[in-house]
């Protein structure tokens, strides 16, 4: 890391990592939301031009599967990397200021991220066998579960950043 610090400050380095983590999370959230909505709301052929909801749900789910797995893993790695700084520079002040529920919500986020990691192989398998009707129900609810986890993690990350983010 010392070679990197010759060019950018320590703060800039960790800020870049955090922003990459956040951008990957946005991409993951978008992909999973599209896919979850596509399994929850089967798109019907409309007589007129397709509206926003129809277009939002009319995605080809299987083509998202590998991207979702890669994005989840990449977001996880960046999150786990910056977590060391969170533990020292964010959590300790949160404890001192008594933001217990915020910390608890963040602990839950790390639990869900790990559990989601374990679901990825079967999620990928189900979507790569999207024509197998035996997997339809499990694929649908697993995708919705992952999307719900992702939304929770995204919003919690946002809240923690609001409580003690840049400039605090």
């Amino acid at each position, binding site marked *: 890391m010392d070679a990197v610090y010759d060019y950018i400050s320590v703060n800039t380095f960790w800020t870049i990592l955090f922003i990459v983590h956040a951008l990957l999370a946005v991409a993951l959230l978008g992909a999973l939301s599209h896919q979850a909505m596509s399994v929850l709301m089967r798109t019907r052929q409309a007589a007129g031009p397709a509206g926003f909801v129809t277009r939002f749900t009319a995605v080809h789910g299987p083509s998202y599967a590998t991207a979702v797995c890669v994005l989840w893993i990449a977001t996880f790695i960046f999150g786990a990397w910056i977590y060391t700084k969170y533990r020292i520079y964010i959590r300790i002040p949160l404890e001192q200021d008594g933001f217990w529920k915020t910390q608890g919500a963040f602990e839950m986020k790390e639990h869900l991220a*790990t559990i989601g990691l374990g679901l990825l192989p079967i999620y990928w398998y189900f979507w790569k066998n999207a024509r197998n009707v035996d997997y339809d129900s499990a694929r649908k609810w697993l995708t919705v*579960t992952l999307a719900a986890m992702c939304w929770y993690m995204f919003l919690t990350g946002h809240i923690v950043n609001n409580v003690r983010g840049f400039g605090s």
Partner: protein
Amino acid sequence: MSTTTQTAAPAQASPLASSTAFRTFATVFAIATPIVYVICEMANWPLFTYHPGTDRLNLGWAPAVKDEGPAMYWYGWIASTLLGAGALGLFAVKLPESATRRIPLALVWIAPLAAVPILIYALRFFWRW
């Protein structure tokens, strides 16, 4: 000049996507991950402890050292979970297919959802008003 017509080859499905062994492994891995993780978290069984203040690792659980900052167990829980769930998945692959076919696929999303209230309870220290 070649007279053969070149056509795009159909996309090859990944061998993993058609592997019964991978399906069995992935199913058991998905069901076992939340269960093993909850056990590791509640019993506090990290494979290792990381001390971010000093960049030091201890095998298993280790307490925070005075004046050296906090101890982190999450990385160790992840390692314990991946090893435990991975071992169960590999064990399941060795079982006859007639047995593994009976595993309800719905468990892959029910098990993580069932883990949520248990983890919320495990975090009761933080739910202070």
